[in-house]
């Protein structure tokens, strides 16, 4: 019996290593693509430039260091944050159809950021904090509303409530923009609702990192326990977990980074929805692996989309349009495949 257990256990370990290898591969890919995208842009020439072209030109070097690099970093962080949040929300709410943009988090954050810009001076720090508060409020309202609905199962109720709350906050941003005196420098509506990283600089990176990296890191450390939060409350209790408290902590850790990223990048949708699905397809539903996979795949996806956004045409393409376009396309592919894994 013991021998059987040992051999089986070894087999499981090997499997585990294979999955870790896959994830390491994703990480490597992210690194490679990051380096490559440093050579992609509109200067000195549109699309791809050689390293010599960049190093021999002080302007190009300045561009890469002071504009491209922070923008690339922000797109990586954005993708990782949205995906991480997607994984967490989907597991906690046991609902594969949710993402921060569906549960009022992104829209609440946009609303909060707009408020901060109009009424509170709009310094980056203030904006981020108020955005975080309203992001949490958005989630809270969605869940609260879902509990009060009497139509359909939990999955449907949550999605419906989330759509309502999202719409409310989006409209709120529209109203603020309409009423606000442009002297207060409220960014265009298109920025908020469609997202964009065209205003990136190191200043934003410095302000975003303290909110985002620690939260993602902590989530990464406790990633296996996320599985337990998908279980029923009694079962989770029997395993020694405090489901209520742990869920709230995990939610806070996933919502705050999203809200902070929204305040610098606007609302970028679909990433949090599809990347977790793709990760689960590639490495399984176990969050021990699907979480880190989502981080890297999400970072990769946003990097890819933003590189297109800033390179393809002479004018900027809003990031949210690209993530929606490409994201929805991939989503359809997943849905219509004959072997429909990853969905219940």
């Amino acid at each position: 019996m013991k021998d059987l257990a040992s051999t089986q256990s070894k087999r499981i370990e090997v499997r585990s290593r294979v999955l870790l290898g896959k994830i390491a591969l994703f990480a490597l890919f992210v690194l490679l693509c990051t380096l490559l995208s440093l050579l992609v842009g509109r200067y000195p020439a549109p699309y791809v430039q050689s390293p010599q072209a960049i190093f021999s030109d002080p302007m190009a070097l300045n561009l890469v260091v002071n504009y491209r690099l922070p923008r690339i970093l922000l797109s990586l962080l954005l993708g990782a944050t949205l995906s991480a949040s997607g994984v967490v929300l989907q597991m906690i709410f046991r609902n594969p159809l949710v993402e921060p943009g569906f549960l009022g988090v992104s829209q609440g954050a946009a609303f909060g950021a707009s408020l901060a810009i109009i009424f509170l001076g709009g310094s980056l720090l203030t904006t981020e904090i108020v955005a975080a508060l309203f992001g949490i409020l958005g989630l809270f309202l969605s869940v609260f509303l879902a509990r009060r609905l009497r139509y359909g199962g939990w999955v449907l109720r949550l999605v419906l409530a989330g759509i309502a709350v999202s719409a409310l906050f989006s409209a709120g941003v529209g109203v603020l923009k309409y009423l606000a005196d442009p002297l207060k420098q409220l960014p265009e509506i298109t920025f908020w609702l469609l997202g964009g990283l065209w205003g990136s600089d190191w200043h934003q990176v410095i302000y975003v990192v303290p909110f985002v990296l620690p939260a993602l890191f902590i989530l990464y450390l406790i990633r296996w326990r996320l599985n337990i939060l998908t279980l029923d409350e009694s079962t989770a209790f029997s395993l020694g977990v405090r489901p209520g408290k742990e869920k709230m902590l995990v939610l806070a850790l996933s919502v705050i980074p999203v809200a902070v990223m929204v305040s610098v990048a606007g609302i970028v949708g679909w990433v949090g929805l599809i990347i977790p699905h793709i990760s689960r397809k590639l490495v399984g539903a176990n969050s021990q692996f699907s979480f880190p996979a989502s981080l890297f795949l999400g970072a990769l996806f946003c990097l890819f989309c933003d590189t297109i956004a800033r390179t393809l045409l002479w004018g900027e393409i809003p990031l949210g349009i690209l993530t929606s376009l490409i994201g929805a396309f991939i989503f359809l592919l997943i849905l219509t495949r004959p072997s429909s894994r990853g969905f219940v």
Partner: protein
Amino acid sequence: MKDKISKTTIFIALFIILLTSCQNNIPTSSQTHGTIQVTDALQRTILLDRPPERIIVVGKASFMILDSFYLFPGAGDKLIAYSGGGVNDPKSFLSLIDTQLESKQVLEYEVGPEQVAALKPDLVLMKSYLASKSGAALEKLGIKVCYLDLETPETFLRDIGILGTILNMPERTKQIQNFYQTRLNFVQKKTQNLSFKPKVLLAQYSEKGGSGSLSMPPASWIQTAMVSLSGGEPVWASSSQGGGYTVVNFEQVLFWNPDILILVAYGQDSSSIAKKLKEDPKWRELKAVKENALYGFPADFFSWDQPDPRWILGLEWVAGRLHPELFSIEMREEVRKFYEELYGLSPEKINDLIFPALKGDLD
């Protein structure tokens, strides 16, 4: 019996006279005195049987039409309502030249046709791009609408002609057109056969918390025309599509690397924005910044880069910046002449009210 017949006849005659006098808008070919016929910016013919006494100006950017409207002395008496509010509130300037402004009704920019109809206007003026949105609804209610474009120097001069016809002030029309034409000719003559045309980027600073982007106006707008007329090469003109501002990121700006960078900011002081960009490490490597050719577009009550009568000041300023070797225009003197000749402001008023409102890198 005779008395009865005569009484009846008189009664019937009076009745007929009453009826005919109650009827409006009967076009009679014999009535040529007082009829106004004008072709507006959308090539529509508008027929008014008498000079309009109740005029309304609606729509976003109403200040552009209003400022042109008030170029004609006495025109303000005919204005009964206008769209106002927000950062480009026409009131800011009009209150200086129209003491009766408070008595006029202020409407929303997106005003509904019923509210306009309730005021019983003889004529409604609006920008031509609002034709399908707002104009059509008004026309369905039988209200006469005249569209104005003002978007290029040519159409501006033409539209001044339209306003002049509506207000029946042909001499004044010539006066105004002359003011513009002389200056236009002055600039054009000098920039006609230039061998060197600096690359110019004229853009709106795109607010977003960071400093990585600018917005380009479409090629068809007056900003682009200003740069070309002043002897510059507007770098965005060949690519510019669309009907509104397009955001370009910093890489594209660097790719263009214009000789001269002009920043427009609505509602803010463009020179402070220009200063901010000069201090940003990213922008330091730009040729325009290195050679100190980054300027904030001047403004007083409204920015001078728009299809507002002030565009001529904008043009003169741009010419002076682009070719200082050809133009040494004393801008403050031009401002004074502008307000004196076109709006009839006294020198004291200009000193006290106009000069303090000047913003941007004027000098």
